[in-house]
């Protein structure tokens, strides 16, 4: 899948989360997503970036614009070297939180995107790979 463009940003604090959102919004606009889709993608980015910060202890986001025959996609990758997610199914369940959140971020992000994959190893870290097609 040809990658048109790829940018990586660190996630170390709350302003980095804002920067990730802004980058994702710009790329989604450039890739021609409509306003509703832009909003979906940016909101998913916000959820995943904040999880990376709050639970992963910080990490980085990679944002890519993909082109395939006849379609364009926006791919986001969130990686951290934090404690990992012991039970991914449980973490995806609505209302499940080990913090003080609503427990809707991961499941919500999966609904907002087309494809969302989580790889996680306890003690090693977490990688969330997600894409939305136009």
């Amino acid at each position: 899948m040809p990658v048109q463009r790829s940018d990586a940003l660190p996630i170390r604090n709350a302003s980095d989360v804002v920067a990730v959102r802004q980058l994702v919004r710009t790329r989604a606009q450039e890739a021609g997503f409509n306003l509703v889709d832009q909003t979906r993608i940016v909101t998913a980015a916000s959820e995943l970036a904040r999880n990376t910060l709050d639970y992963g202890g910080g990490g980085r986001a990679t944002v890519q614009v993909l082109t395939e025959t006849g379609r364009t996609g926006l791919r986001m990758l969130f990686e951290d070297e934090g404690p990992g997610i012991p039970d991914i199914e449980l973490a995806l369940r609505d209302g499940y939180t080990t913090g003080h959140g609503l427990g809707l971020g991961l499941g919500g992000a999966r609904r907002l995107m087309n494809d969302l994959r989580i790889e996680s190893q306890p003690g090693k870290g977490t990688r969330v790979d997600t894409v939305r097609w136009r």
Partner: protein
Amino acid sequence: MPPSQTSALAGVLQKDRAGVLQAWMQDQQAGSAARPDLMPASEVQDQASQLLDLLAAAVGSGEGRDGSSWQALRQFLASISTSRAAQGFSPVETAAFVLSVKQPLFTKLQQRAADPGQLPAELWAMTTLIDDLALQTTAVTLEARDRMIARQQEEMLELSTPVVKLWDGILALPMIGTLDSARTQVVMESLLQRIVQTGAEVAIIDITGVPTVDTLVAQHLIKTVTAARLMGADCIISGIRPQIAATIVHLGVDLTNVDTKATLADAFRLALRRTGHALGKSNGSERA
């Protein structure tokens, strides 16, 4: 750096201190870094003299860079950087002040060179050391600037969340920008405070200017609404644009217990009804 390379410098600082200081001050006055409008020459000389003492102590101590004599030197540099910045010196001028000691040190090292073969290494060691000290003054100034920006941001947080009274018993809070947690906290508190002060019955939170509503923002909104309710006020959330409404649904956030309206005007109309005020135009029929 091996001690042999700065031992010549240590010697110069010890034996030629007065000469170095005098030449340094002359260069200062000739150079552009001197700002008699900001600092009298006597004070510049004071700083220069202290700096030379601390430098001599550090270089002569044989300690590593984390030794106490180096720390004292760094602390002094930090303090003059801060005070100079407050007096109106630019970071460049403060760095130039430190850098201008190079020329006199250079001359003295040359004069005292016992072994010409060693001279380049000695000069190099001196130069990198002074560069390092000058860089430190810049780093301190930048840090101070960062702190100032952070402070101004905090002040803006408080400014940018005005609670306005729309009508008897009706408050409105137009929120603009990113609702990071620090800001939301301020917003929430100022709204609750005003509810208590004014005894308002309805508070409208308008989020037209909030670009992203994610689970964190939603949670803050729900908490605010709940707290307001405990103080006896109903909240209406307005300005939920269609794309945001759709996203909230996908996220699975439940706002069914919260009154929401598309526009501030709609919310205001509802608030007027709630508080028993009628809009004149339709002659009270709105209340039906």
